[in-house]
């Protein structure tokens, strides 16, 4: 019993938000994804998105100028994610 409980995958639901040019490139403003990896990070989510291939792999290729905001604060790839977190992908900003 305790063994079977340990093998039930932990699901972390993350809200993804795509801004500006990325919203148009991906054809959506936001989505929820379920991450089943243990202790998921921002990098985990980016890898999952790249695995979709096509425009996803292209826009999120390493070296592309995409910033990530975790719960409205700019974040690095190793930030740990918790259920309900909001991860936004931001192209270079051009306000002011």
């Amino acid at each position, binding site marked *: 019993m305790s063994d079977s409980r340990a093998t039930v995958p932990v699901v972390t639901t993350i809200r993804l*938000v795509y*801004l500006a040019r990325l919203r148009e490139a991906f054809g959506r403003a936001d989505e929820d994804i379920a991450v089943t990896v243990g202790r998921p990070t921002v990098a985990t989510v980016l890898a999952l998105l790249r695995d979709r291939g096509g425009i996803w792999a292209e826009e999120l290729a390493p070296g592309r100028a995409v910033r990530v905001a975790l719960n*409205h604060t700019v974040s690095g790839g190793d930030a740990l994610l918790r259920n309900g977190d909001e991860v*936004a992908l931001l192209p270079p*900003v*051009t306000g*002011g």
Partner: protein
Amino acid sequence: MPVRVQTDDFDVGRELAALRGTDARVGAVASFIGTVRDVNDAVPVTTMTLEHYPGMTEKSLAAIVDEARGRFSIVDALVIHRVGALRPTDQIVLVAVTSAHRGDAFDACRYIMDILKTRAPFWKKEDTPAGARWVDARVADAAAEQRWSTDP
């Protein structure tokens, strides 16, 4: 509230008067207004749309103002940034800073603008004769931000 994101235009005279209030410690008011030009990178611009990331935008602007307060001796500061559809000559952004002396007022105002340009989550999409295009980030803006990190 020193930070506002709004679709409506703003009245600079009224905003500066409200920021100054009746505070007689203030000897200097530096301000900056960004406006829509009718040409960008040699391409005519008829209209533009400014979008942002609600929630993060206000947080980001407030953090920039706080950093300015930490670096410079200022009395108060105000940032108003518009979003939505804008046309040439429209006002986009107002940054205003009050201080006892002009050096701090100028420095803080410029600091807020420079950092806002590279960090606050706003994006411009321009309508041009060749179609709509997202504005590219300017190398000059990154250089302007960098200038502040070499300060003591």
